[in-house]
């Protein structure tokens, strides 16, 4: 049976799609058969970030409406052979995701994969609810700012009350905090909330911290998930995230401001 992981946030633009792509790629690198699904109907960003937009013929919505078989809509990743993308439609609206339809597709995916990663749309409405409904675990993507933390809190409440697990009275969804776009210098300057602040407010286990980095933009422009950007901080940070998710211990990095130049270090800053 597959494990279903939702990447969610409430607030928009915090890094869900970036994280879904990197995290799913990381699981596949570790040898797990993984599928990543775009639940953001109407926007369709995941295929761009995964660099497979030109190969989309059928999508999630077509499968739900019986216009295509699941196998026709699944796109194999260009870099990892055990990673598949289930893209969404850009022309339909959110109502095209029916509860029953999603349940049927999830059930079919269950038998074929080890991990199902769901890239949630922003907000707390139907689209986000559908994305989190089947989850066994949740990655709550949060930026170090008050509004993002508030929305994450809101989503945590919804995870605890509105998911399938909650409705059936099963074990609650495993909750993981992922702090993204973290700029230690700006935290030090008091412009951003610190990791401690965010943890104190949300009180769920920390999965990792992804630094703010231009590499993310370069990666998404090239259609390469950030975890493949060899030797960069963000790639290393996302690898740590995957390792921790799989139960391995990894010390936190990229949470201190970078050491400044040689001379500063020599003469003391």
């Amino acid at each position: 049976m597959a494990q279903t992981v939702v990447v969610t946030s409430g607030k928009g633009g915090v890094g869900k799609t970036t994280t879904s792509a990197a995290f799913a790629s990381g699981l596949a690198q570790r040898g797990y058969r993984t599928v990543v699904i775009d639940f953001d109907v109407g926007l369709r960003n995941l295929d761009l970030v995964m660099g497979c937009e030109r190969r989309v013929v059928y999508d999630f919505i077509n499968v739900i409406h019986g216009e295509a078989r699941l196998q026709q809509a699944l796109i194999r990743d260009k870099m990892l052979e055990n990673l598949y993308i289930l893209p969404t439609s850009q022309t339909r609206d959110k109502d095209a995701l029916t509860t029953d339809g999603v349940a049927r597709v999830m059930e079919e995916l269950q038998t074929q994969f080890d991990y199902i990663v769901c890239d949630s749309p922003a907000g707390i409405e139907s689209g986000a609810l559908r994305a989190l409904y089947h989850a066994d675990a949740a990655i709550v993507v949060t930026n170090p700012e008050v509004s993002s933390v508030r929305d994450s809190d809101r989503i945590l409440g919804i995870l605890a009350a509105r998911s399938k697990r909650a409705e059936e009275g099963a074990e609650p969804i495993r909750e993981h905090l992922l702090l993204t776009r973290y700029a230690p210098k700006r935290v030090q300057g008091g412009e951003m909330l610190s990791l401690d602040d965010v943890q104190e407010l949300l009180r769920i286990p920390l999965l990792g911290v992804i630094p703010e980095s231009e590499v993310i933009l370069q990666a998404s422009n090239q259609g390469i998930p950030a975890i493949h950007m060899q030797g960069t901080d963000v790639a290393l940070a996302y690898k740590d995230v995957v390792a921790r998710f799989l139960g391995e211990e990894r010390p936190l990095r990229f949470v201190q401001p970078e050491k400044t130049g040689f001379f500063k270090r020599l003469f003391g800053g």
Partner: protein
Amino acid sequence: MNATPTKSTLRLSGGVFTLSILRLTHASAKTLQAELAAQGPALRLVQGAAIILDLTDIDPSLSLPFSEWLTILREAGCFPIGVRNVSDEQAEAAAALGLPHLRGSDAKAASAPPASNTAAGSVFSQPLRSGQRQYARGGDLVCLGAVNAGAEVLADGHVHVYGPLRGRALAGVQGDESARIFCQRLEAELVAIAGVYMTLDAEHPLWGKAAQVSLDGEHLHIIALEN
């Protein structure tokens, strides 16, 4: 007859909503108006909200001032959208004003963690998160974890919060002036007792401290919880 049927643009779908229920205990429009005026802040909770009028406590043979109620409630900022627990005659009068008769049952707040409810009150062991709201009817409300910013706890009796209190807490919401609020860490957005409320910020001398809130006449008193 048109041979080519045009495609309908109407779409009907179902949805489940949580609504507030206002239970009226008397048939007089004047009393309602007076009570609304007296309730003040407690009623802010339903501002802009759709509400159902529950008439359980009202004699089913009475003819009711639905039209006046509607005016008063709308003026108070809420939107009655239906009635329940009414006699057939009352339902008919309500329906004539666009208030359908609803037969739903009270639901436990759908988006809130489970509570253990006993005669002594309600105990929540999960944190209450932004957007969640809990009401302990007829007793105390105890929250073992945090009440986060944007969450709201209400009780007819006392409110006790053993984690940080960062949201809103309202005790004695039915008017019990002896109700109090106790918290381990006072960082609340708002505290209220029997309708007397106060907003707080980090300037407050007891901010972040263990404190209790009580009502003395018109004023809220916040003092440190000694231990």
